[in-house]
């Protein structure tokens, strides 16, 4: 695997741990950057705040975005991402507990590439994460060297 990495925006430490475990179990060894809320996510992506100085040329190959986040929620993060040229084409998968139609609709309307529900049962959860990882990291193609220009 090359230096593709995943940005996980997740406030729940349990979900974070289980996602990481599942990725590991699925054999996906890519780097995973974890941020805890919407503001951190944007800081990371645009190299501001606590992530000032990050090389913003290097964008994640996949962003796993939860909807219910502290400070700025998932939809707002997504909207901001789609407004900037830097982050407009970065693949974003909404990974959330919500099964509300409205959330799904708004996610797609705001530019999400995919919407996946987090199952309660761990076995199913692991299966979902594994499929996501395999698909987006191995199958899905992005422009070379993670450059979005």
């Amino acid at each position, binding site marked *: 695997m090359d230096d593709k990495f995943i940005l996980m925006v997740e406030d*729940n430490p*349990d*979900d974070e*741990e*289980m996602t990481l*475990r599942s990725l590991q179990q699925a054999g996906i060894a890519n780097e995973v950057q974890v941020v805890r809320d919407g503001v951190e996510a944007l800081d990371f992506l645009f190299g501001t705040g606590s992530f000032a100085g990050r090389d913003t040329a290097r964008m994640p190959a996949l962003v796993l975005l939860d*909807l*219910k986040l502290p400070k700025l929620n998932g939809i707002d993060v997504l909207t901001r991402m789609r407004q900037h040229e830097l982050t407009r084409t970065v693949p974003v998968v909404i990974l*959330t*507990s*919500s*099964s*509300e139609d409205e959330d799904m609709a708004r996610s797609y309307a705001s530019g999400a590439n995919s919407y996946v529900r*987090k*199952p*309660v*049962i*761990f*076995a199913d*959860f*692991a299966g979902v994460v594994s499929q996501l990882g395999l698909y987006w990291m191995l199958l899905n193609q992005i422009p070379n060297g993670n450059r979005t220009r």
Partner: protein
Amino acid sequence: MKPFIRLRSVRYKLFVGVLLTSIAALLVTGASLMAYDLHNLKTSLADDLNTQAELIGRACVPALQFDDQKTANSNLALLQARPMIDAAALYNAKGAIFGSYSRAGNAAADFPQLPGDDAVEFDGENITVTRRIVDNNEILGSLYLHAHYNLYQRVRNYIGIVLAVSSLALLISLLLSTWLQATVTRPIQDITKVAQQVIEKRDYSPRAHKTTDDEIGYLVDAFNRMLAEIGTRAQAQEASNRELAREVAERKSAEDEIMRLNRDLEARVQERTNKLQEINSELEAFSYSVSHDLRAPLRAIDGFSQALLTEFGAQTDEKMRHYLQRIKVGTARMGQLIEDLLNLSRISRLEILWREVDLSALANQVVQDLQQRDPERKVTVSIWDNITVHADQRLLRVALENLLGNAWKFTGKTGEARIEFGMLQEGERRIIFVRDNGAGFDMAYADKLFGAFQRLHGMHEFPGTGIGLATVQRIVNRHGGRIWCQAAPGKGATFFFTLQAEPQQHGPA
């Protein structure tokens, strides 16, 4: 014919009546008397003159016989004694004038040439008499007399008398009519006056005076009684009018009250609606929270239990594995419960999109899904064709998923599992049914079936949360329909439901 008397009043009519009657009577009487009198006069004159002529004729016989003209003339001259006789002429047997006499002395009285027959002729005031002189059956000659009488004078006298008497009669009429007035017209006038008064002032208290005891008197009595009656009625009418006015006022104030209450009611309804909307929004927010916040910890419980099993499997013994397994079962169940509850609440919140839904196709899809999840199971499924209804596609899908899912589940232990999906027509109603030959249940508990979380089988027999049927019932109710069932333990179950016949106005359902 225009009446030449203007009949303005009874009194006038009476007066004219009496007058005309009197005059008519007088005229008729006068005329008849006059005619009779004149006739009598003529008759007696005729007799008289005839006799005169006869006498003079006889007297002239010798003169005629002896042809003595002188004697004849002197005989005729005797007629001088009678003033009414103007002239006379004596004719001999040959018809020539033998002698003549004329009162006025003028011998040139115009006598007829030849004498006629015996006759008496009246012409105005003139009378002419012709008489044959006969002696011993021998006609010796004729006598001609010319007389006059004062006919016109007589007639004038008569007329004068009649007129005089008529005037008298007029006077008497006047007197009579005055008297009649007292007895006839005055009471009538009195009644008229009272009537006018009553009409003008609308006052029913005056009464007419009864002066006579005849038909007029009766009329006065009747009139007075009628006035009394009208008076009473008018009073009663007024009383009832006042009553009515009062009632109307009451009703009006009641109506006003009702309008006020209506306005209040409207305001209250609006308030309640607002409250309801508030509650609805709260419910939506609640559901949203539930779907996020309840699931996450559950996921953690299950995840870490699984992690224990996976990573420390070697260090666990039978009991630990058993406990961990029970934990996982618990979380799975809770997850399912959350799922079902959310579905149930969504059913209530969703706005129904009415469309033509092909239930046959939908049922087929649901069964395919069921089969896909359970590829090993062999179930004979019979789905009738062309069942289309007017409903919300999404909600009906959930309903069928539940009903068919139940049928699938409860035939899990049946050897030759059979599921049937169809529609019956009962008059105007169309009844859709799902039938299975699975475990069935006791109808005694049928009414509990549709309550949320109610189950008739233990978890060890068949898995489930007991929300499914509550959800289906809510869906059917929102479509204006009804759901019921029929079953027997070990013999399977049939669930029937109806949906509303015609699409209604889209109000809150």
